[in-house]
């Protein structure tokens, strides 16, 4: 039934049937081919299923819509669909839907299409069997099929809704879409014919509460049962409360300060290393994240597959930094600027670094640029140093390295440092295309060593994911990439 809606929930609640989730951002669209933003993904995760299933700790299992798959060749995968899976509109899932989904994804130029751009075509064998043909061998292909952006859509429903599909999603997931009040809340209700069995809660209401503090307060007062992305300051306060359960987990996000490696003086590796040494990243991270982060020693968070955890890190050494600068010809430092968008954490880092760089004679102005022009202008290389983060959403090193460091990916594609290294280029391609995990690992470890040495970035931090629930909430297990699975979650 859909009579009860978001607006009717009382201020204080412990409603066993309805799980209320506080979320910082408004989803943009529930059409996976239209957007690939985190808030949307978090909802889509409950409505749709993917061919492959990824557990909360990013292990990819064969537990998805595909019952099994078989590697025919590095570029050919044969899949068998689970039988009897029904979409929320009652239709049964068939190969046709799969084919339709991936074709539409390409056609619409979906923001996440790059995930499967190796896919050339889907060949239907019968209703439950199809073969995926790749145009080149692509290591993380199977992993990518677990990403919510590659969820399988229902052809009929999509064609029927047309442009408005984003507000009328139909999936095979544990919850079906009920209502969306833009800017306020989004309601899902349990899909009783879910192929894994009905979900634990009858209803989920996502409430959009943009302010961190307000979200925390809503949890504290019991207006919501579960909140995502708790602010570090609030987390400390909440964790102290008895009726709140906090979840602090390692995430996939890397924070870094990039250098424009083609611009003086950052074209000199000594300058880049000197800055890495001049910064007290440890202290800054402690302040910026209130301790809810790990100081980065390399480009990949330890949770990412093939992360090189053996890198030594630069440490804080002002004297060496000065020496290096002198060696590079800047004994008295120089003037430069740090760009950032208005993300408070990045601004904080920038402010701290501004002070720390002063100690080695570098005068850095801070320039805050709005997000859209920030991306544009850093892509054009107008900057000196810039603050940015990267989420290796798939949990795979390819995602976490290729577009950031490969020389083909200059500018918009992701490499805003314009740093290039032939060997790294080669290693990244190797890692991307070699289906052999061991070979991939070797390539990525080496690549990370070089990146560390060459320092196109100042490596800053890997942010912890902070989530919290009321104590009566059962079954919540944070997903490393943030697409928390609510199938098993319920109010006790």
């Amino acid at each position: 039934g859909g009579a009860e809606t978001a607006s009717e929930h009382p201020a204080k609640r412990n409603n066993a049937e309805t799980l209320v989730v506080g979320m910082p951002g408004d989803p943009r669209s529930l059409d996976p081919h239209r957007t690939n933003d985190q808030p949307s993904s978090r909802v889509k995760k409950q409505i749709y299923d993917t061919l492959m299933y990824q557990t909360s700790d990013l292990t990819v299992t064969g537990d998805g819509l595909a019952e099994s798959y078989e590697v025919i060749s590095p570029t050919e995968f044969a899949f068998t669909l689970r039988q009897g899976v029904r979409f929320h509109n009652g239709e049964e899932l068939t190969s046709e839907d799969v084919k339709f989904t991936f074709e539409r994804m390409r056609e619409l130029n979906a923001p996440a299409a790059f995930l499967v751009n190796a896919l050339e075509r889907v060949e239907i064998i019968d209703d439950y069997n199809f073969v995926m043909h790749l145009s080149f061998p692509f290591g993380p292909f199977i992993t990518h099929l677990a990403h919510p952006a590659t969820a399988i859509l229902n052809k009929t429903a999509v064609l029927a809704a047309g442009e408005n599909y984003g507000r009328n999603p139909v999936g095979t997931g544990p919850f079906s879409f009920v209502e969306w009040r833009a800017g306020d809340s989004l309601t899902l209700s349990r899909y009783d014919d879910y192929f894994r069995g009905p979900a634990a809660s009858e209803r989920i209401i996502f409430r959009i509460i943009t302010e961190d503090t307000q979200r925390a307060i809503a949890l504290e007062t019991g207006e919501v049962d579960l909140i995502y992305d708790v602010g570090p300051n609030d987390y400390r306060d909440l964790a102290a409360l008895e009726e709140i359960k906090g979840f602090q987990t390692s995430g996939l996000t890397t924070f870094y300060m990039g250098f424009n490696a083609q611009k003086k003086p950052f074209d000199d590796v000594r300058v880049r290393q000197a800055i890495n040494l001049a910064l007290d990243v440890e202290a800054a991270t402690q302040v910026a994240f209130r301790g809810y982060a790990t100081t980065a020693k390399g480009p990949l968070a330890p949770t990412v597959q093939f992360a090189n955890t053996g890198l030594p890190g630069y440490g804080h050494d002002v004297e060496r930094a000065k020496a290096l600068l002198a060696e590079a010809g800047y004994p008295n430092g120089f003037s430069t600027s740090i760009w950032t968008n208005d993300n408070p954490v990045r601004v904080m880092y920038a402010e701290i670094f501004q002070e720390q760089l002063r100690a080695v004679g570098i005068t850095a102005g801070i320039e805050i640029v709005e997000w859209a022009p920030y991306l544009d202008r850093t892509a054009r290389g107008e900057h000196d140093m810039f603050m940015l983060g990267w989420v290796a959403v798939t949990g795979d090193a390819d995602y976490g390295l290729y577009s950031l460091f490969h020389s083909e990916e200059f500018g918009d594609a992701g490499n805003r440092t314009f740093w290039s290294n032939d060997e790294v280029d080669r290693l990244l391609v190797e890692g991307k295309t070699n289906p052999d995990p061991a070979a991939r690992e070797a390539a990525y470890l080496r690549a990370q060593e070089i990146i560390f040495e060459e320092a196109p970035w100042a490596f800053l931090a890997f942010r912890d994911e902070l989530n919290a629930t009321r104590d009566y909430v059962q079954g919540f297990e944070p997903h490393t990439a943030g697409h928390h699975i609510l199938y098993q979650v319920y109010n006790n």
Partner: protein
Amino acid sequence: MYKYILRRVLLLIPVMLGVSFVVFTIMFFTPGDPAKLLLGERAPESEVQALRTQMGLDDPFAIQYGRFLFNALRGDLGRSLVTRQPAALELVNRFPATLQLAAAGVLVAVLIGIPIGIVSATRQYSLFDTFSMIFALIGVSMPNFWQGIMMVLLFSIMLRVLPSSGYGTPAHLVMPALTIGTSSAATITRMTRSSMLEVIRQDYIRTARAKGLSERVVINRHALKNALIPIVTVVGLQFGYLLGGAVLTETIFSWPGVGRLMVDAIRQRDYPVVQGGVLLLALTFSIVNLFVDILYAYIDPRIKAQYK
């Protein structure tokens, strides 16, 4: 009178054209490429370019503006670049919340402002006058977002009587309405007070007293109605201001209003929503003011005579 209303309604057309032009111009010069935002950071340049061409973003200003106007006149504001929904629908979804908040805010402001204004005018320089002005001024002096946070601390956390954020029930409306209402209250108090002081000095008030009317009747029947014109004006202006100016309050309380949508749209370069939204707010503002002008005529027969 009807002719006057008609003329005023027709006058809205150039104003709306002007509004669309201003907004279009500002957005035109705003850096940030919607095509790129749409396709995501990773889209190849060629695709971005193709989309730009398809969206007509490379056309000269005049052509783009002309196209926008042409479509807008047919009631088509385009689709949101972010959500792919028709921009008009996005706005219509958010509009009730905005209206609700603005109306409640104005109500709060009026309920606080007018009585205080009247009493402090009739007791000019009394202790009550002083204190109520201080009270009203504190309301206007507090930055909305700060006041909002403080109220949440008080009402949601300490007293636990009101929901801290959200939209839907009357209880949800209380704090946002108080937050914006108190900042408008001072303006209304001020206007009521000075308008009443002005009216109380008038000869006809002396005439009313000379008839032997009680002070209450003199104030309520004779003074207030005359003082109402400038008050109604500021109330109208405040309402207009609250329509789009409640951005910060909406943010604090996660209020799903147009203001917040607009800020997001501006920042995401969601041109259709920005243009449509500003047009909607401007139109509402103008209509409210038109309404105020018509109200004048009902309050003041002299003005009605002018419209004839």
